């Protein structure tokens, strides 16, 4: 019975058509928002259709700015978890400080957009427009990842995890002390730009890009090498894989994308300070969502993030005071009882059905085919 239920759920989630429909619905959602806005501003309605549609939209408000914002947050979480999964899941280097790249990206973008509170901030890296500044934030974050990864990625297992936790905490304190950079306790204010659909589409696009990128990476020799590093690092090295280079590359890609998202988030939020962007909870989110979905799978972080985001939304709405306690306990429960995540549950199904094939298509294109793998 349980197996059958799982199979049904699986067939729904992993059906290509369902995914396509979901993406189209998500892509069209802001048009309703625009329509509602238009109805609000319209002086008079020219046809009865307009009247009834606008009446419905004004009455029910199916898509509000708040809803778009929530979806944007969900997309951001999916991006972050997918990025985390690149080092944490594929190469098996569990990173407890990945939020540091989010913070670097946020601060990079904010500073490039000219929100520094320091008189001596050079003009040439100030007052950039949003798009180059966002890229700049990503690059700052990637450069930082190369530097820090060069040192920490030599560490194995728990030592790496703790060293990255240390990076996060140390960077937070470092930025707090350098009020020239971080604005200290005052934080930094970015130019205010309230455009919910823009951020919605931007995060939506980045999310699709990231998921497709990771799915593609998984099929390449690079992805196979990462998994080889996870399974047996010494063996991978004997096989001629430059493990350090691979690890640092994956780490840097993840950091770059995380930095970009950090920059986008900073512009959307219009205010950042040290405590907000270097929040430890963000790292926990990434770990927890990837774990819930399934480590080292492409679809895992997507499912895990989406599920956990709405679950948390419910808890948040109903038991505000308890939601962080709830998160800690939930992490324990996930780790103890579903260590392989949701993808692990699906995997136990006997393969051979078409469903399992679909999943395999999501999880990996078999690398056996290529000679060099």
């Amino acid at each position, binding site marked *: 019975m349980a197996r059958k239920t799982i199979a049904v759920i699986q067939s729904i989630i992993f059906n290509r058509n369902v995914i396509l429909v979901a993406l189209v619905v998500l892509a069209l959602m802001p048009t309703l928002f625009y329509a509602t806005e238009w109805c609000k501003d319209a002086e008079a309605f020219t046809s009865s259709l307009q009247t009834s549609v606008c009446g419905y939209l004004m009455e029910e408000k199916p898509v509000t700015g708040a809803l778009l914002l929530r979806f944007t947050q969900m997309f951001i979480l999916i991006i972050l978890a997918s990025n985390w999964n690149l080092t944490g899941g594929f190469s098996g280097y569990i990173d407890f400080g990945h939020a540091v790249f989010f913070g670097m990206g946020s601060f990079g973008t904010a500073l490039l957009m000219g929100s520094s509170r320091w008189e001596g901030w050079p003009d040439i890296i100030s007052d950039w427009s949003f798009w180059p500044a966002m890229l700049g934030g990503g690059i700052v974050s990637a450069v930082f990842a190369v530097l820090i990864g060069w040192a920490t990625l*030599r560490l194995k297992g*728990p*030592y790496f995890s*703790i060293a990255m936790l240390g990076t996060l*905490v140390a960077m937070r304190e470092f930025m707090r002390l350098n009020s020239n950079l971080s604005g200290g306790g005052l934080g930094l204010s970015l130019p205010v730009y309230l455009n919910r659909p823009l951020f919605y589409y931007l995060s939506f696009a980045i999310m699709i890009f990231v998921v497709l990128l990771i799915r593609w990476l998984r099929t390449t020799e690079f992805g196979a090498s990462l998994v080889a590093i996870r399974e047996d690092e010494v063996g991978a090295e004997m096989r001629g894989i430059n493990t350090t280079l691979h690890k640092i590359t994956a780490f840097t890609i993840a950091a770059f994308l995380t930095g970009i998202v950090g920059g986008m988030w900073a512009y959307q939020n219009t205010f950042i300070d040290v405590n907000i962007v270097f929040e430890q909870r963000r790292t926990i989110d990434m770990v927890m969502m990837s774990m819930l979905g399934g480590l080292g799978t492409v679809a895992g972080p997507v499912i895990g993030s989406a599920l956990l985001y709405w679950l948390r939304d419910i808890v948040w709405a109903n038991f505000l005071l308890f939601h962080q306690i709830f998160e800690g*306990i939930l992490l324990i429960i996930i*780790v103890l009882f579903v260590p392989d995540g949701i993808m692990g549950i699906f995997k136990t199904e006997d393969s051979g059905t078409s469903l399992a094939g679909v999943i395999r298509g999501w999880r990996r294109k078999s690398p056996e085919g290529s000679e060099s793998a």
Partner: protein
Amino acid sequence: MDFSDLLIQTLINGILIGGLYAVMMLGFSVIWGVMGVINLAHGDFLMVGAYLTWVLNREYGMEPFLALLIVLPVMFVVGWITQKILINRIIEKPHLIALLVTYGLGIAMANTVKLIYTANPRLTTTQFSGFWEFGEVVLPVTKTLVLVAALLMMIGLYVFLRYSNLGKSIRAAAQNKEAARMVGIEIDRVYAVTFGICLALTGAAGMLLSPLGSIQPFMGSVWTLKAFAITAMSGLGNIPGALLGGIVLGLVENLLATFIPTVGSNFGIIASFALLVVVLVTRPQGLFGGLKAAQEIR
């Protein structure tokens, strides 16, 4: 105050705080050494010990150093129960599982304390304050008492592990679990006692730091990190090494605070992180002992 006095004062402060660091990290490193569990909730247990002291101090006007008599047994029981309910399930599993579970536990604990006592920084007051003056150099009474208490507890732990039957069982379990089981040591009980003792020490360290600076619910991760840094230097379960490592960290922090003004005093966490990474990258086996040589609990 000339330079040599300043230097001596800084060194004294570093050594005084080093004792606290040593007793603070011992719980972490012994748990790791005996059970192979890296306890990321370590700092949060420390925080619980500190809050327990603060409550006793504020509600009942109890002298913080006397509160040790309550904090030690209470935290022992907490540790025993935690081990029985939670840690026992993850001992055999890979490191990652233990990391994540204790991380989750830490979050839950910090937020529970925040829920009850809010996030405001708190401070306990002790009667043993003031300074002993020796010329230009002063010896703060509270910090000296903290060092003395820390040393007493470490000697107690050392004697316990060295000479008592239970202590010998703990060392045996750390060396070879299967062999220990074969000679009739109840591993589960040994683990529960170890966890209890380690948490009692950790809670005591929380008490010791509560009169020195403000405490707040989310201070845990910083202390976990410091514990890890000292463990990386001193090796697992190595008590003399712990003292040495604690003093090294205390000295580094205090030297930075004195000689790099304005920013130095807050550089503590960055210093311990830099120390950690340098040690791990250059000497992965640790400075004074060995992380791998976990068998020998000295």
